[in-house]
């Protein structure tokens, strides 16, 4: 449970090099990325994503939107090193991705909490598996701090089955943030959280990222969430997922200090992205392009 138990060979394959200086250095570069799945039963392979070229700069907040099943989760799975690309390359901090590494953390769409671990123990997991240079006291302190951040103080000893959906999702968020990774991959992290809490968490995340200079790839189904959080919104088309358009969001930050939704630019952006997504969603609903 403690750092003591972790042995040097536990170091994940992709130990990140010293972080590049902040600025416009690209941190995540995908070139011609094509990923898919083998459907063994039908002897077919399904292309989930085709020819994705995207480069994300340090400290940038990129939001992916697109209809259900277009390959958003697949994209961040590829960056995290969970699935291997069929074609193309993925580089993180200038190094080819060959597997997961402590420079990248992920919030899972289906929470993926260990049911036999308490909230606290789930959040402690990254320290247990990764050989990070963090002292035991510092770990305790961080775990406590991040439990507080996601407003779960008092539930440290609860098991996931005793929590609501939104609470589970918050545990997943704390687990991804606690090791303070360079890159945060968040798969619809606020989907199960009510509108009010959600807004509070969005503002919290914006402030947090501004402070830590983390690079974020964030998936959402909410266009409002996309615009309020993103530096760039990447609209992905329906199967096979391709980049349909990349929309820059140049609204002033911090966006929760004023009513960003009232800005004419906001309304324009919202309308624009909404149209892009609607076309795709309609195709998705009709089941075209299969």
């Amino acid at each position, binding site marked *: 449970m403690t750092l003591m138990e972790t042995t040097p*060979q*536990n*170091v*994940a394959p992709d130990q990140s090099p010293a972080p590049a200086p902040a600025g416009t250095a690209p941190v995540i570069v995908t070139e011609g990325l094509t990923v898919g799945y083998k459907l063994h039963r039908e002897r077919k392979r399904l292309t989930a994503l085709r020819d994705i070229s995207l480069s994300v700069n340090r400290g940038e907040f990129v939001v992916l939107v697109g209809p259900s099943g277009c390959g958003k989760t697949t994209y961040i*799975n590829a960056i*995290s*090193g*969970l699935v291997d690309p069929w074609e193309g390359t993925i580089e993180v901090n200038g190094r080819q991705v060959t*597997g*997961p*590494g*402590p420079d*990248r*953390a*992920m919030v*899972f769409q*289906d929470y*993926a*909490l*260990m*049911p*036999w671990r308490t909230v606290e123990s789930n959040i402690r*997991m*990254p320290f*247990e*598996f*990764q*050989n990070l240079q963090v002292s035991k006291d510092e770990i305790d302190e961080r775990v406590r*701090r991040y439990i*507080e*951040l*996601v*407003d*779960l*103080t*008092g*539930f440290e000893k609860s*098991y*996931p*089955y005793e929590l609501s959906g939104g609470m589970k999702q918050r545990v997943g968020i704390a*687990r991804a943030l606690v*090791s303070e990774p360079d890159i945060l991959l968040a798969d619809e992290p606020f989907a199960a959280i009510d509108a009010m*809490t959600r*807004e*509070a*968490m969005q*503002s*919290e995340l914006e*402030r*947090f990222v501004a402070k830590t200079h983390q690079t974020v790839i964030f998936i959402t189904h909410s266009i409002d969430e996309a615009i309020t959080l993103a530096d760039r919104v990447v609209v992905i088309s329906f199967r096979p997922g391709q980049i349909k358009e990349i929309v820059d969001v140049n609204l002033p930050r*911090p966006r*929760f*200090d004023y009513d960003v939704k009232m800005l004419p630019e906001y309304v324009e952006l919202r309308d624009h992205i909404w149209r892009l997504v609607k076309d795709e969603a309609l195709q998705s609903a009709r089941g075209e392009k299969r």
Partner: protein
Amino acid sequence: MSTIEDSEGVATVDATDSNRIEDTEFTAGEAWTLYGSWAVTVINLTIFFCIWELFAWSGAINPLFLPAASSMFSALWEGMTTTAPPGAVISGSIRDHLLYSLTNLSIGLGIACVIGIPAGLLMGGNKYVETVLSPYVWALASLPRIALVPLFILFLGFTVKMQITIIVLSAVFPIIINAWAGVKTTEKSLLAAAKVFGASRRELYFKVVLPYTLPFIIAGIQQGIGRGLIGVVIAEIFGGSKGLGYLITRSADTFNSPLMYAVLFLLVVVSLSLINITRWLEAYVAPWRRIDML
């Protein structure tokens, strides 16, 4: 949402959640859901044995086939409180036979676990082991074990070894198959999460697959107990001069039906208590699978 550093401009809902968890008292309704089924069971069984008693007294069935419940219980009481005099072929004592059967059952179950758990885990974890072993496992698991008894008597004679072999063979397959299924059904997203947060292959097995599989293994042991008990009785009925199975045949041969019923009753009690122990164990190690809490 409480904040890391309290700065202004953020809707800070300061909900300290400790006051959301507080002590409560049992309501009558909750007490009923917890203990009510026990009360019902006690009343239910009392009525059952009363009807049995009255039915036996009415003389509708020869007491040789259906003794009174009371005489079964007195045979049981006597059998559990006395030991057989040395050299007696059949006395009223049950205690020694019970102890003998239980000892064999625990040895057999122990061996079945020692073989079955690693075998099942390996089959789930390694494709080659799985491909090689699975035909044998399925073949032996589907073969009625009683068909093997004459073979083992031939090989090992009427010995304890023969009996334990039969118990092991009866109990080991549910254990193997459950452990195997547990490994196979380990949730992919849990494995993915552990990988993302840096788990090595070893850690994936020991910190994800194994805890996930534990309740499956316990369910396997639970089934193994049921099968093992059948194995015990079969082995003792076929051959041997001790144990509850032997006692059943002997008491039938000597027309001692209260004793026979007492042994049957005892078998039910033993089986139920062992299964309840594993149920409790399962709920204890895997509270997240306690679906009956709903």
